[in-house]
């Protein structure tokens, strides 16, 4: 039997954010967003991790993982390079969010707004019903991707 998950609690920064790695690439795109609770309030004691392929759609052991804490506004931020498509899927980031109040992390995927055709053909995006919470918004020189833990526009979360 697997070891059960427990929440990261409110004090995880001493163990996990000393080693945050929000800069996956020195230059590249900024991926940012807010973690929000069921009342639409920011979740400052959250942490977001991402995992992605490189530009050619290859997963490498030493590239593509990132970790960002959240500020008082619940905002996380990464600098990275846009991945290529993987296994016939549209380019995407795997996004895992931990927080006080989450007894286990929530897993989602972030897709890119400039990939209309690939997104339409993506086997996951086209099989989730409403994919809108999974596609980032193009903002002012950056991509915005909010993670809504609960509520009317709750983000689509996955199991494996």
């Amino acid at each position, binding site marked *: *039997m*697997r*070891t*059960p*998950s*427990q*929440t*990261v*609690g*409110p*004090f*995880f*920064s*001493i*163990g*996990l954010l*000393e*080693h945050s790695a929000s800069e996956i690439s020195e230059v590249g795109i900024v991926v940012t967003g807010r973690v929000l609770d*069921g*009342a639409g309030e920011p*979740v400052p*004691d959250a942490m977001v*991790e991402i*995992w992605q*392929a490189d530009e050619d759609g290859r*997963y490498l*052991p*030493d590239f593509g*993982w990132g970790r960002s804490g959240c500020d008082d506004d619940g905002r996380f931020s990464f600098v990275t390079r846009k991945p290529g498509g*993987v*296994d016939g*899927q549209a380019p*995407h980031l*795997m996004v*895992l969010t931990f*927080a*006080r*109040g*989450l*007894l*286990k*992390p*929530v*897993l989602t995927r972030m897709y890119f707004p400039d990939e209309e055709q690939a997104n*339409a*053909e993506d*086997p*996951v995006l*086209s*099989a*989730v019903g409403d994919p809108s919470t999974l596609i980032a918004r193009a903002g002012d020189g950056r991509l915005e991707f909010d993670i809504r*833990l*609960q509520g009317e526009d*709750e*983000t*689509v*979360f*996955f*199991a*494996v």
Partner: protein
Amino acid sequence: MSRSVPALESVRDGEGPNPPYIHPDYVSTRLRGPKRPLLLLPHTRSELTGPVFGHESVGELDHDLTRQHDGEPLGERIIVSGRVLDSAGRPVPSALIEIWQANAAGRYHHEVDRHPAPLDPNFTGAGRCLTDDSGNYRFVTVKPGAYPWRNHPNAWRPAHIHLSIFGRAFTNRLVTQMYFPGDPLFEFDPIFQSVRDPKARELLICQFELETTEPEWALGYHFDIVLGGPAETPMET
């Protein structure tokens, strides 16, 4: 959508050893836990791969929380060791484990912690290590104290160490808490009790171990960690 694809299968939350997202006794889950069904992802390389951390990412003394300052921390010195296994029971080598904890008085070295217990200038309470080729890990630290929180009147957390583990795949990620045997606070703690299956709760409790106890120096506790999620063959590098 340009073609019609069968919807992803949905999974009922709260099945298996993991706690559910919504566990009302732990008040913070009420607004933070998702309520919609989870959708089951296919196992592509996105699900089956994960970062690999090399030896350069861990310092020589990072596993020893009693040697990070000029003096020694106060408290009961302990050695926590065990193995990291995948869901098929195979050891996971080079797994990065990060831990954090309160000091012996039950106080975290963290600005948000307002518990009026003393800080220990010789204890930060954070460490990390990589498992060896057989999946073994070992930390040296002090036993953390219990501490109060505001979930409900007179709420106290049983003593615990937080652990974060990377398996072979990103989807194997686990963050958990390790508790100590015989703690009288177990029955009152909604975080521990959020795991519904009593057998699964047992997996969160370490065991005293005389073999790893070092004479005249430190008590040994054993804690194995079994990861969930897909466990395919290790990633080729």
